[in-house]
């Protein structure tokens, strides 16, 4: 272990953690340690002071009630997050917070919940819940494997790219084959399962971007990812 420290900010760990999103934080923490870095996790919850020194931000999904609790606070720190994103800070947002990193979420009652607009995306509540195993593909990360469970359907605008193309499952919506969104080093996705442990290429992307930004270069020593490989293989054989 070196004295090189990477700080992970876990956004709204109390109210937005419903689908094992803690697994993403743990995955980054451990891999950083296995690569020889010191990892530090700061939990940010509504009303907390937003920290100055942040290298990676991770956020997860919540219930409607959780989203209602954090939505105002999120808007108050939105400009800080957008500034970090524009300065190439790697960020991962899953499900509920992915939606609120977009322009808005329109509820079933027609209410508009404003997002921070980091992604050029719009999300609409639908009656159908999209649930099941999902496999998407991206040129950068290969097959991305996980589980989705959402009733909001997200549509991408002009200034954003999809994270992957759906091979099994629904993804962003029931109309096109896109899943998730990317902007600079920011990744949004509906996938849990948890996403990073079973998709170590995405975890390493976030780590590499953070380390290079802070320390100039990242030399990657070998981690044994054979369990992840076998878990991916087993998941690919499971029905929707």
């Amino acid at each position, binding site marked *: 272990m070196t004295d090189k420290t990477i700080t992970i900010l876990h956004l709204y*760990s*109390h109210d937005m*953690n*419903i*689908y*094992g*999103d*803690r*697994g993403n934080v*743990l*995955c980054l923490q*451990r891999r950083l340690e296995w690569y020889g870095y010191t990892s530090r996790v700061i939990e940010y919850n509504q009303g907390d002071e937003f920290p100055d020194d942040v290298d990676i931000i991770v956020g997860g999904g919540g*219930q*409607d*009630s959780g989203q209602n609790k954090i939505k105002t606070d999120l808007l108050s720190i939105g400009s800080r997050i957008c500034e970090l994103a524009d300065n190439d800070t790697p960020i991962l947002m899953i499900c509920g917070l992915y939606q609120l990193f977009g322009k808005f979420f329109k509820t079933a009652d027609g209410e508009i919940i404003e997002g921070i607009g980091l992604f050029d995306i719009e999300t609409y509540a639908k009656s159908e*819940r999209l*649930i*099941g*195993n999902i496999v998407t593909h991206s040129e950068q990360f290969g097959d991305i494997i996980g*589980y989705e*469970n959402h*009733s909001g359907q997200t549509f991408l605008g002009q200034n954003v790219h999809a994270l992957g193309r759906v091979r099994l499952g629904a993804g962003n919506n029931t109309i096109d084959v896109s899943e998730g969104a990317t902007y600079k080093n920011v990744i949004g996705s509906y996938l*849990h*399962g*948890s996403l990073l*442990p*079973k998709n170590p290429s995405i975890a390493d992307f976030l780590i590499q971007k953070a380390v290079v930004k802070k320390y100039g270069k990242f030399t990657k020593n070998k981690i044994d990812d054979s*369990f*992840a490989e*076998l*878990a991916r*293989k*087993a*998941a690919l054989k*499971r029905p929707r």
Partner: protein
Amino acid sequence: MIYWSNITSYVIIDHMPKPLVTILGKAVRSVARLRGGGSALPGLVVEHIDPNFIKHILATLPLGVVVISGTNGKTTTTKMVVELLESQGLKVFTNRTGSNFTRGVAAALLGDIDIKGQLHADIAVLELDEAHAVHFVDKIPPRFSLILNVMRDQLDRFGEIDHTTNLLRHIAKATTDIVVLNREDARIASIARSLGNQKVSFFGLDDSLLSTFPSDDNLHIRASKSHASTKADVILSKFAGNSATFIIDDKKVTTELKLTGIYNVFNAAAALTLVRAIIGKNLNQTKLIKTLLNVAPAFGRGEILGVNGKPLELVLVKNPSGFQLGLESFKPSGYATMIAINDNYADGRDMSWLWDVDFVSLDAEGVAQVSGIRAYDMALRLQYDEVPIKSVDANLKKALKRFIANAENQPKRIYCTYTAMLAIRRNLSKITHVEVVK
């Protein structure tokens, strides 16, 4: 001989007289048994022929119907309530087969009624799955209900916890007399505020035990709020080893228990509260506590089997809080540990939940065997908590054989999801001689 497949053609008959429905149902039941079929099938047939079958029979019970629901602990709590009510001299009907759907109730009824369709019981105590309970109580309003807890569990089936809470609220609202609620689970306790004329009775924990019981909101935080300002009828105040102290109606009662697992002991407080509500003034507390002491865990819920003269414990894990409590209740030292994770519908298909459980307590002893359809998801999870693993094999039968062979002289413990547990039970008796110890 009548085969059930032929009987389905009678479904079109609308108003078959009740004795005929009963005879027919009983026939299907015995045929289904002969064929080794599932417990719900005859119930399904009867339900189709006479949708009011259950309602008519249950309406004859002098003390009415009791419904028990919630995420964790339904089966063991129901077993406790039945045995406690029997200790008070009541004849109790229950859906013992663990088929907690309406047609499972119908199937159980068919086994207990006489040929005239009479059920010789004082009261029915039914364990119902949240989603099915909602339809059940619309047809048959219970006189008493007990709502244990609401945790993240099979969210792929029920959607969100708040939605599940609303299902449970519906059960409470449909109850006519007394609703028993968990004081320490904020979502469950809040149900009291939406009730009308029903009486509410709470069960609770002493503040000193709060941190041991995660509710869904403090699964990761464990800084529980005291609810001591709300009066609870029965409080679990102390728990150490096999001894538990309850405060029942402000009086301390200490007793030994056969039940293992802290959550089972808290559910004992729930069962006591419910039984006190049902029996009222005429309760014989001596008999009540004596019976509680001897209640054994239900099938696969912390039960202990004997394999080659060494104990083997089966711990059913369905969701993060249950798994976490299991890991905290049973110390790993000296034991060989196996974990078997399936992802069939009854297990929950999403593997995210494994990442909400902290496995660090297994670091020192390690895990001897990982298995199940999602064995490698589990192995991956353990890798990130740096828990050593001896062997991973998705094939449950082979894994079980190896596990038993490698830990011949050690007590063993298997954490398993529901369908993995069924497969383990099936295979155990094929591999080795099994005796039920507790």
